[in-house]
């Protein structure tokens, strides 16, 4: 499971990342970006023309080779049975969806098979969640703060998680492509 979090300044980077990744996505992706609530949104269609992006409903089964986007105004969690679960409790870091909440849930459900990526953002959401992913044996990747439009989010994550890898978007694409190849080799 690849979980990607971002806030201010992350949408162009996210679109670029999705654009550059090879079409055959061999694992599940879950995107958590801070977004406005109570306004109609086309974010799912804006992010990628290549691959359909799904805003999951409560208890929807998680399928591989799919890209999911956390819906507006809910936290997105994972149930042990391999389904999504939603939660409408208080915002964290003024955010719902909160990246910390989803990353912690991904860490718990997927352990070493979890990969967390944090992009540009003007809040510290995501750092604590990335710490949970790494503590559970997963991998953390942070957008190189020098390339981020807003560096608060990547800097906070690197400060809390020294093990996290700092990468440019091009390096991330290479890393994810290699990752998929090695996963194939394992099969």
């Amino acid at each position: 499971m690849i979980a990607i979090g971002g806030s201010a300044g992350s949408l162009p980077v996210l679109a670029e990342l999705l654009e550059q990744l090879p079409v055959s996505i061999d694992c599940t992706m879950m995107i958590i970006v801070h977004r406005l609530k109570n306004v109609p949104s086309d974010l799912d269609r804006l992010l990628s023309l290549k691959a359909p992006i799904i805003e999951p409903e409560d208890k929807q089964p998680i399928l591989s080779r799919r890209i999911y986007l956390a819906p507006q105004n809910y936290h997105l969690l994972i149930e042990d049975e391999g389904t999504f679960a939603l939660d409408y409790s208080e915002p964290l870091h003024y955010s719902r969806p909160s990246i910390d909440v989803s990353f912690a849930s991904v860490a718990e459900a997927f352990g070493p098979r979890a990969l967390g990526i944090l992009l540009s953002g003007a809040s510290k959401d995501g750092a604590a969640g990335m710490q949970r992913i790494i503590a559970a044996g997963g991998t953390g990747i942070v957008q190189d703060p020098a390339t981020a439009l807003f560096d608060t989010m990547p800097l906070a994550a690197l400060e809390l998680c020294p093990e996290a890898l700092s990468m440019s978007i091009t390096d991330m694409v290479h890393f994810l492509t290699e990752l998929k190849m090695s996963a194939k080799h394992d099969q």
Partner: protein
Amino acid sequence: MIKEISNEELETLVSLIHRQYGYDFSDYARSSLKRRFQRFMGYAYIGGVTELSDRLLQDAAFFERMAQFITVNVTEMFRDPLFYKTLRELVLPRLATYPIIKIWHAGCATGEEVFSMIILLQEAGLLERCRIYATDLNAVSLHKAEKALIPLKCMKDYTQNYLQSGGMEDFSNYYMADDEHAVIDQALRRNIVFFQHNLVTDQVFNEFQLICCRNVFIYFNKQLQDRVLRLFYDSLAPLGYLTLGLKESMMFSEESARFDAVSAVHKIFRRKS
């Protein structure tokens, strides 16, 4: 640092609470329940699950505090404005054909959705004919709902939501404001009764033309969702309406065959006759 709770520890806590206090959380969705317990431990400075169990065994007041905390009671007025717009356009004209309209808000928390509903009903000229039953598990939330106090800082957002829902009036006509709160107009609230009802254990108590239960199902597992859907089916008049939260689905339940979708996008359903 967040206190970790293992799955086994979670089951132990759930069965302790059931035995000692009679509240059954065993069919609540695990991921969010675990998260609520973890957050409560951080909030109450509890060092670990053993300490939490000991406190729960010895201290009923502590349990009450925890129950308040873990049952989510976050809500908004006119959340998802387009849902309310659809309700105005598709559902209220049908309700208008009944001499008495009975509405159940199940899991009403502090009442914000009930207050949104009475404003819609008032504007449709139906409020006089409505009897509104608003229930929740959480007694403290119900007590707040009866007072109808809304933090003033929320009203700017709620006014925006109201306008987007198709509201044409001056929203401030519906409340009186003091320094900190808006109080929803007493005259609008006269047909509401608030009382405690537990969807896990309690039964049918009336027959309704409309049941609103938005963003409550997300805290339940599939078995409990099925049970509550049966309870709602039995509590609805034939062709009565049921509304769920925008991201709540009936698709994953066998009970869905007993309902028609009036608006799949806004999650408005209708009991088949």
